[in-house]
């Protein structure tokens, strides 16, 4: 089932996940392709977000959870190992949330936040990073004249792009996006999709989405989840045109979910 004609950056093995007593993920095995866009699709409540949060240990914040199996980054880093420092991990694996969450600080301070907490204080470095990150996030032209005004004055779409700029400012290798466009209008969505396509060559991107068109437009690979299980994983073209399982086809064509 797993295509292996790509370079893998994270390999997930026999992953089980529990919220307290109730199991949310069942025996997940997959390889995440490097420098490609992978889409996670599936009906609501099937565990996409839960799985995504396993990659940067955000589930640690939930409280009573337990996890077995392994996620191996770069063939040797065990993400889930209890001695693995989540701080280091999160600097390499950034995350964009469904609801944009800029800090109530200036646009500039939002972008350099990750660098500052990592101890980078040099003005010249920060200035440069602000410019390149905002340019990459396709926001530079809109905000370059008001970098020091509050980020709270931006529109929803701009805020989400700012969050992307903030995430790429620390130069991560992997970006996790949990329904990044669900609160945006079609125009802002189109901009973010463009952005994802631009970032594709440099970053490994995993995006959770409910929008089938979006998945087919932006992703190279697609994983379909159902009730906590990974049902099918393959190249996006193949999944959308000739899925090997009836269940996948039903979901994609809108017959359930």
């Amino acid at each position, binding site marked *: 089932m797993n295509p292996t004609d790509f370079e893998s950056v994270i390999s997930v093995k026999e992953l089980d996940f529990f919220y307290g007593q109730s199991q949310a993920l069942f025996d997940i095995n997959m390889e995440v392709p490097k420098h490609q866009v992978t889409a996670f699709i599936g009906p609501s409540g099937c565990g996409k977000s839960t799985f995504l949060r396993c990659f940067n240990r955000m589930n640690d*914040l939930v409280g009573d959870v337990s996890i077995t199996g392994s996620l191996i980054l770069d063939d040797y880093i065990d993400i889930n190992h209890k001695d693995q420092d989540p*701080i280091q991990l999160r600097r390499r694996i950034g995350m964009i949330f469904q609801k944009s*969450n800029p*800090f109530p600080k200036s646009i500039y301070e939002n972008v350099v936040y*990750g660098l500052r907490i990592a101890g980078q204080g040099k003005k010249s470095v920060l200035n440069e990073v602000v410019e390149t990150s905002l340019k990459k996030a396709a926001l530079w032209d809109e905000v370059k004249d008001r970098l020091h005004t509050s980020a709270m004055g931006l529109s*929803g779409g701009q805020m989400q792009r700012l969050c992307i700029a903030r995430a790429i400012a620390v130069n991560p290798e992997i970006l996790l996006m949990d329904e990044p466009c669900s609160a945006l209008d079609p125009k802002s969505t189109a901009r973010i999709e463009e952005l994802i396509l631009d970032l594709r060559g440099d970053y490994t991107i995993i995006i959770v989405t409910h929008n089938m068109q979006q998945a087919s437009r932006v992703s190279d690979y697609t994983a379909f989840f159902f009730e906590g299980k990974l049902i099918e994983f393959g190249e996006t073209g193949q999944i959308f045109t000739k899925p090997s399982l009836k269940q996948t086809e039903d979901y994609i064509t809108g017959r359930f979910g």
Partner: protein
Amino acid sequence: MLNSNPGIVKGRFWREGEAFIWLSSIGVGMILLIIGTLLFVIVKNGFVAFWPHSLALVETNSGEYYLGEIKQTTLHPHTGEERIQLKVGNRELYSLDFKWIQSKTISRITYPKEAVAIERTEYGNFYGFIQGYQSPLTGAEPVQGPNVLERIEPSFTEEVQVLARLNEEIKSVAVEMESLRRKILKAQYEGENHAAIEAEQRVLREHFDLLLEAQGKQHTVLSQYQVLLRDAEGTTKTLPLSHVVRQYQPNQMGLFAKLSHYLAHLWELFFDEPRESNTEGGLFPAIIGTVMLVLTMSLFSFPMGVVAAVYMKEYASPGFLLQTIRIAVNNLAGIPSIVWGIFGLSFFIYTIGSGIDQIFYPEQLPTPTFGTGGILWASLTLALLTVPVVIVATEEALGGVPSDVRHGSLALGATKFQTLMKVTLPMASPRIITGFILAMSRAAGEVAPLMITGVVKLAPALPIDGTFPFIHLERKFMHLGFHIYDVGFQSPNVEAAKPMVFVTTLLLLSIVILLSSTSIILRNKIRKRYQAKAF
């Protein structure tokens, strides 16, 4: 017909809760009315306290004369006859400041221009007429005339200044002698040789005695400057000029003169020491004491409360224990403040204070240094009293910070502590400051716990002054709240002290408002910076 219109719904009054809205607005109205009345009474009485009132000369049918300020006209509670209350002053002559006179016995009321009111250092105000002056310059006999005062005033002021300089010097020598005395005690305690210090002490004492002698002489010189007075009945008396604080003739003062008199009084209120067992003079030591008490309290209470709340909300794992602690903290806020006072007395003063004395000031014992009430212990007691308020407010504030923003910070590789310092606390700060404001107002208004932890009616020295180490937290202090109680209920002449009670209340209120409005401005500034716009 209105009712035929299907859009008109009957019974709005009950169905849409209009009755409830009415009820709520009545509640708000009543609260506003009560607060408004209270403020009005305080402000009105506080503000007019220093306004120079006209002096009425009341002549009765039986040929008696009274001079004073008409305070009020009322009906006698039993006989129903009209009467006026006159503040006649001259306590050393009449023994009572106030006199009731029945209106029907009054034959005439006039306002003589030359009537004078004299504020003095003893016996309250004098109301009467000036007969003349006596001074070494003008010879032994009293002299009259309009320019006499102007003639003798320069030399009198000079003599007063000489005395002031002497007093100043005596005070500093006294401080030096006290520190020598402590040194000797210490040397004795440690069994060291202290002959040299004793020699120094002897020299100092001689100097001190000389100064005292000079002071006595200067007092005699000053007592030769006198003003000769006559009251409404014609009784004469002399008053040393040095006892006169201020004299004015209200019946011939214009608006401008009255205003400057008023301002002079305000100045005295803010920057002078109290006189006449606190019923007159200034409130300076009480103002300093109150402000310093609240600030010192804040220094302990705010950090302690915030740190405790941060731990409880962000770090402690939720469970039965945490819940118990939270309930306990909430209930602490309801303990009567006098109980806190007793706790402060037994724990801070008798345990910690006495401990400090035994370790650091053993030579002073049995005279306590820290083992007695003082501003430090009172502040700590108030800090305990207000810390629950800060904890509850901070916990609420932290809970109000949206978790997406925290997660955003954590997802960027921030530690929990960095997230706390850079995102959570700044965003929570407006509401935390609201907690501070509540705590400060509460602390500024408390009196009961202070009464057993170090407040006094007249403190010999301020807790902050020019002698090293400048801030003396072990000292006793004065406080506006206690001042109200003391002047209003403990002074021998309650009626005469009434204006002072209102003025003190007004001042205490103003200080609370000043402290809290500063914080409110600060809070609004911060809030504007961190306000999350609705998405």
